[in-house]
């Protein structure tokens, strides 16, 4: 089971066991990680699953597609390097230990 580390704005960490194949968003909502709202349940419609992927993991998670680009551009409060939608990152064993920061607010 690949682990995901969610880091809240106050620096507190929450480590969650993900199932390979599920998304970073789904692992968070199933475990009730605060700050990942995921209103659309992974449909790439809401951008309330925004996370900041730490630079060291960026090469492993790949690039956003066009729809995700639009969502990140238009819908998230503060887009930064490493901004991704949690629902568009699928967990694999390779991503074990993936660390993401949760934004202070989701729109």
């Amino acid at each position, binding site marked *: 089971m690949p682990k995901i580390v969610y880091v809240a704005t106050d620096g507190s960490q929450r480590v969650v066991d993900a199932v390979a194949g599920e998304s970073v968003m789904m692992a968070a*909502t199933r475990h009730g990680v605060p700050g990942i709202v995921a209103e659309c349940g992974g449909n790439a419609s809401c951008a309330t699953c925004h996370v900041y992927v730490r630079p060291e993991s960026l090469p492993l998670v790949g690039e956003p597609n066009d729809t995700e680009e639009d*969502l990140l551009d238009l819908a998230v409060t503060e887009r930064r390097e490493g901004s991704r939608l949690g629902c568009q990152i699928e967990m694999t064993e390779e991503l074990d230990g993936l660390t993401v920061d949760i934004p202070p607010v989701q729109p």
Partner: protein
Amino acid sequence: MSGTLIVGASQSGIQMAASLREAGDEEPITLVGAEPHPPYQRPPLSKAFLAGKADLASLAFRTEAFYAEQKIDLVLGEQVVRLAPGLATTHSGRSLPFDRLALTVGARPRRLGVPGADLDGVHYLRDLDDALRLRGRLGAARHVVVVGGGFIGLEAAAVARSAGKSVTVVEAADRLIPRSVAPVVSEFYRRAHQRRGSDVRLGVGVTALTGEHGQVRAVELSDGTRVPADLVLAGVGIVPRTELAEQLGLHCAGGIVVDEFARTSEPDVVAAGDCTVAPHPRTRDGLVRLESVQNAIGQAKVAAATLLGRREPYSAVPWFWSDQYDLKLQIAGLSGGHDEHVLRGDPEAEKFSVLYYRGGSLIAVDAVNSTADYLTVRKVLDRGGEISPEQARDNEVPLKRLVSPPA
């Protein structure tokens, strides 16, 4: 202290429980649901789950551990049948006392009221058991008839057609999805489904279902035609569950009537989600029933605040999505009452959006495979600003560059 009782453990009920805890509520919370399954998401039931592309586990809202950690007493497989002030009683005779009550009981599918409606092979799609049954039957079916051209019917029709079935969609109105989208978008969906090989019949009703040995074989239509069918899916709307509210004497009118704070006519009782009707979230005119995840979540949050003594009016921009084939529809705002619309892009290319105006002001968008337009309008509706109809017509310029800031 008996704490809060939330009747209905689905989208709205889960959100309310979670919001109460997030806001620091430490009183007991009991979440009671009639279904035996751990709470799950409904939208995939007519999409990925029906198509066999998503499994049961992926539908769950939360892990079991979550409910325990959050001290949410999840009572499943128990239907509340009687409500009196301070006390609920379930089907099996269990008593659930409460100080505060929330109703998130949703809706049941409207049944077909024609002869033959009880034949084997006639299905509805509202809950997981419905979806499991339908999915189980879809494999062997050859002729699928969908009665009702709304979102659920069309999504299921797309799944069936993609699986190689012969598919006929029958809609009594003269266009598809009549209650939710404007005629241009209805017409687009008619053509899109036909292009993919489904037969779409508009302006005809179903008069009877006929069968052999108890199994449905055909659907008879008001124009005298007969369509062969071994599987019928009726997607003809929902009926909000108001029985419990009526027991308490709460005001109901096609749903439990709530105000902008999710309060029923009894101010200590809140209600949220598909079981409610509420003032239009933007204009406050009339009463609207919104059947969407966004509304279930948004109203639940407002209701949780109300239970905790805060007043946070519900004013979120309604939004909705629907997936059919590779067509991603995203809607923001409510287009009802528009007096002008602007089409951007090309419906034939299956990538376009329709902006709706009322008295010159932007009120809604329907976007097909055009997430940027959807998001731009949603942002304008949320935070203010305008996009003039004249400018919006210029499809060469990205919509986000046409937004003029709030006055």
